[in-house]
């Protein structure tokens, strides 16, 4: 038998999660449906009322990050539910690998799911609200990646906690959404700047805050994940 290193173990866990997703589309489908419904409801509400006076660049960032954050809760909860059914998280805990690699693997899989969700969601939001991003696609990808990383880092840890205590999405959203508020505020502000054509230099403090919180959440989760999984 070979020793399985940290990143090899993380990759195996992530690949297994994505393999499960590919077979069922369970978490991704639930997230996408939820997010598209949020966009539709907002588009419908704005379409006929006084809110129509709001410009698209003022609306889209808020609606987009609202849809991303709530859909992430749905997706992360579903991905952890898969582990709860056969008590497989306990199986992973007993495997001869660094337990932080379980966290890293699940984080990678959740990040891929959220990235796929955003690939569908962003063009839809732009079309629904008739917004224009100019040429700032790369900057938007950077903002989405930065803030989504923090959201996944925290969501994966809280998802494991919720899974261990046998609770569902309600507890996950109660834990995750308040704690991720700094990331969501940074995401909304930076995305708004891009839709207004202001560029990222004007929101560098917000981006620094998002990076700081993301790294803080990641390292705290990596250090504490073993204790979360302990029986």
């Amino acid at each position, binding site marked *: *038998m*070979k020793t399985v290193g940290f990143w090899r173990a993380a990759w*195996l866990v992530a690949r*297994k999660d994505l*393999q*499960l997703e590919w*077979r069922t589309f369970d978490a991704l489908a639930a997230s996408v449906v939820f997010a598209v419904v949020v966009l539709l409801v907002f588009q419908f509400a704005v379409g006929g009322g006084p809110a129509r006076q709001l410009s698209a660049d003022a609306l889209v960032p808020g609606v987009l990050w609202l849809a991303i954050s709530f859909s992430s809760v749905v997706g992360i909860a579903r991905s952890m539910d898969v582990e709860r059914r056969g008590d497989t998280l306990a199986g*992973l805990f*007993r*495997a001869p690998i660094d337990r932080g690699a379980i966290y890293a693997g699940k984080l990678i899989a959740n990040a891929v799911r959220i990235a796929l969700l955003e690939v569908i969601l962003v063009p839809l939001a732009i079309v629904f609200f008739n917004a224009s991003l100019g040429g700032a696609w790369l900057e938007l990808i950077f903002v989405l990646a930065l803030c989504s990383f923090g959201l996944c880092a925290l969501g994966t840890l809280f998802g494991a906690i919720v899974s261990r205590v046998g609770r569902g999405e309600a507890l996950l959203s109660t834990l995750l959404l308040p704690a991720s508020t700094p990331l969501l505020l940074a995401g909304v502000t930076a995305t708004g700047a891009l839709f207004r054509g202001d560029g990222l230099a004007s929101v560098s403090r917000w981006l620094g805050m998002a990076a700081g919180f993301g790294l803080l959440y990641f390292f705290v989760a990596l250090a504490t994940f073993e204790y979360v999984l302990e029986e």
Partner: protein
Amino acid sequence: MTAPAIAATGLTRRFGQIRALRGVDLRLERGRRLALFGANGAGKTTLLRILGLGLAPDAGSLAIDGLDPRKDAQAARSRIGWLAHASLLYADLTARQNLEFWSRLYGVEDPAARAGQLLEEMQLTAYAEEPAGILSRGLSQRLSLARAMVHEPALLLLDEPFTGLDPYAADGLRARLKTTGGADTSFVLATHRIDDGLALSDQWIVLTRGKIVAAGSSPETDPQTVADAFFPARGAA
């Protein structure tokens, strides 16, 4: 000299006010098979969880296959296989994909070959491409046993493996357990089924309120002896 599969002294564990284990000493040589009896709440599962390195004892020392889990946790975990009533299988992966995944995670050299070999040994080849979630409880438990054996553990921990099985499926699992592993594979079987425990083991112990209250050699033991230790009040009557 080969290190024992289990060498434990003075294992204790509390959950709040409840003393689940109260100074358990246990030694199991390589290749020996131990039946662990006890009423509900006697401490069987707590002991198995500690031996399986899923739970740390409050006090006492433990070595698995000569390895101290506090110093060499990953190597110690690599010596252990686990079979419980929860399947530890991914319902949406096929039987083969499950075995290949766990083989890779345990660092098995050729995961595909090992998965194929275990499917054959457990007579599951016909179900290899079926999702684990659609298998009957009996087939699922056999697949779980295969999962526990992917890395050829020195020590197999079995927590009530017959729970929920019909008599035919229980027979199938019993037959697999008799032939599973090599001469060097030890196991600890926690069960309420005294006949099964004695038939499958070389030695037995009874836990009551977190302490070993009786022990013996299985081939020489009458089931009533275990039952009397198991339920002392009834034995006295």
